């Protein structure tokens, strides 16, 4: 049996070009989504954190609509940054501990691709829910429907950026004791551009200046990090495993 199975393997192993790479990417995303589904608490933690932090401000400040409208973009975006931070530490930690990361490094598929798969799954699990619930939370701040739309759009472009940059930090602090705090210290400064342009887009829209400029810059940052973040992450992962 061993030989009959091995005989039909080379066909699938040989097409490790374009199609094979896609299959590996899909397999990584699928595995991480399955894992998220089996450990629901981890997924819900960052979402609930986001909801609670954003809801605390109107309660603390009181019903002053004018003030709430002004602070809304900043509060929502800062809360999104912190919620993204919460789940980052687990991005590679489990794979590191159980030996899966070694196997990923040794896989014939490019490690950058596998990292992209993990980041994509991380975004689907922790970033996308924030995007979807943000308009509902924005209502507490009396944002106009158009501003809510821009808020959603800015988070849609911005949260993948947070996952990509965060992956670099998560890889750099892998296996370091007390890595959680270090991770925040490393990553939060790198989030500043995303925060400025993301919150800036919503502010610009509220004040009637138009959000296109900010959103374009945010998208440019995303394009840049899609290229460079996997590269930096793979380099850090290889060092962590040495």
């Amino acid at each position, binding site marked *: *049996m*061993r030989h009959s*199975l*091995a005989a039909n*393997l*080379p066909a*699938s*192993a040989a097409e*490790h070009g374009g199609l*094979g790479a896609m*299959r*590996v990417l899909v*397999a*990584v995303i*699928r*595995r991480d989504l*399955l*894992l998220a589904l*089996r*450990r629901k608490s981890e997924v819900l933690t960052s979402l609930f954190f986001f909801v609670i932090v954003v809801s605390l401000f109107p309660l603390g400040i009181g019903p002053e609509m004018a003030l709430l409208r002004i602070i809304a973009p900043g509060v929502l975006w800062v809360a999104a940054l912190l919620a993204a931070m919460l789940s980052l530490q687990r991005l590679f930690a*489990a794979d590191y*501990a*159980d*030996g*899966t990361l*070694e*196997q*990923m*490094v*040794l*896989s*014939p*598929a*490019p490690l950058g691709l*596998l990292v992209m798969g993990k980041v994509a799954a991380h975004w689907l699990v922790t970033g996308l829910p924030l995007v979807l619930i943000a308009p509902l939370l924005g209502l507490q701040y009396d944002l106009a429907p158009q501003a809510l739309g821009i808020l959603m759009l800015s988070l849609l472009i911005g949260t993948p950026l947070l996952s990509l940059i965060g992956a670099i930090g998560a890889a750099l602090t892998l296996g370091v004791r007390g890595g959680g705090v270090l991770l925040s210290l490393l990553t939060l400064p790198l989030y500043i551009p995303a925060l400025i342009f993301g919150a800036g887009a919503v502010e610009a829209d509220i004040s009637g200046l138009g959000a296109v400029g900010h959103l374009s810059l945010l998208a440019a940052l995303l394009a840049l990090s899609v290229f460079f973040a996997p590269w930096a992450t793979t380099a850090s992962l290889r060092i962590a*495993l*040495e």
Partner: protein
Amino acid sequence: MLTAIDLACVRGDRRLFAHLGFTLESGGRLHVTGENGSGKTSLLRMLCGLSPPEAGEIRWHGETIARQGDEYRKAVLYLGHHNALKEELTALENLRTTAALSGVAVEDAEGVELLGRVGLAGREELPVRFLSQGQKRRVALSRLLWSTSPLWVLDEPFVALDSAAVSWLADIVGAHLSGGGMAVLTSHQEVEIPAGRAQTLRLSQ
């Protein structure tokens, strides 16, 4: 052909080994022995390309492995101390993901059949955390059944296995060697592998 030339390994400020060399030809196996902490795992990780040697060179068919990239990664199968299994996923899901990572597509029916051959029939849909140590090791070892890699690097493959599984594994490694494969392995147990030219490399401090 795997050649190691003048390898050295330093962990912290301790030199684990130096001037280590060997040649492993097709159909050969190398037993790495030595006390705990003598650098067996470090050597095996070096041979896979996970960590660069402090000094010296590792060559695969005459060319340095560092320069070969995924060509070499395709040629090596590494089974470490860790089983690289996800506790929340079932044995079948684990097997299919591992296979996909190596670029091999395993269908559900094939996966069930493979798990049956490692003695896990009827437990395919059970999350791995409900399996015993030995059963987890068997799931990890199922990789050997579909591997197309010529070089197997196995770190303590016999740990946690019962005697039936030990002889099964010895047969699998033997079949791999008779088919022209190579194996590097560490083991504290004396296990009779039925085929292949054996070499022993003893690491001492």
